């Protein structure tokens, strides 16, 4: 079985699961875990979008 992901969907999946692990392992309380997980997810995906647009600008 082979899976074909686009660059963005691969980044999305990566960000989702890495954020879950970061949230669980880096914070003490459930509330803090959720908040930190969401923060990491936003930073991962935000970084992808910013880097993507930066490369688009450089390419022009």
């Amino acid at each position, binding site marked *: 079985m*082979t899976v074909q992901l686009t660059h963005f969907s691969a980044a999305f*999946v990566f960000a*989702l*699961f*890495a954020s879950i*692990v970061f949230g669980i392992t880096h914070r003490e309380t459930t509330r803090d875990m959720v908040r930190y997980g969401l923060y990491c997810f936003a930073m991962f995906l935000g970084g992808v979008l910013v880097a993507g647009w930066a490369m688009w600008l450089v390419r022009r």
Partner: protein
Amino acid sequence: MANSTQLKTKPAAEPAHVSMMAVVAPAIGWLIPGAGHIIQKRWIRGVLLLISIGTLFGLGLMMQGHIYRANGGDILDILGFIGDLGAGGMYVVTLAMNGGQGAIAFAIADYGTKFMIVAGLLNFIAIADAYHIAIGKKQ
């Protein structure tokens, strides 16, 4: 007299239990991601870790990612091997089934290779977390 005996024996019994769990939890957590949390009754955390790390590794395999072996070759291969090794049981089973043998010939396969390395590295973090719970440093 009986009270003084209890006072002496009780603190001695607890560290023995803690040190046992401090060894078992990381070992089990390495073999099966999240199991180090599950055996310490952190059910939800353990299941989430299992799903997250297991899915990343599985997707990496399905994307025809490459599994690194302990061949002592290129430094990047060694680092890749260390990352993959963190996945523990999944890495061993994949090697035993001759999985992850494809060449990294296209972008998706490269993503898959990185997915599996990151899954192993995330499992190292989960193992450290299980250890911290076992020694009482974290709830």
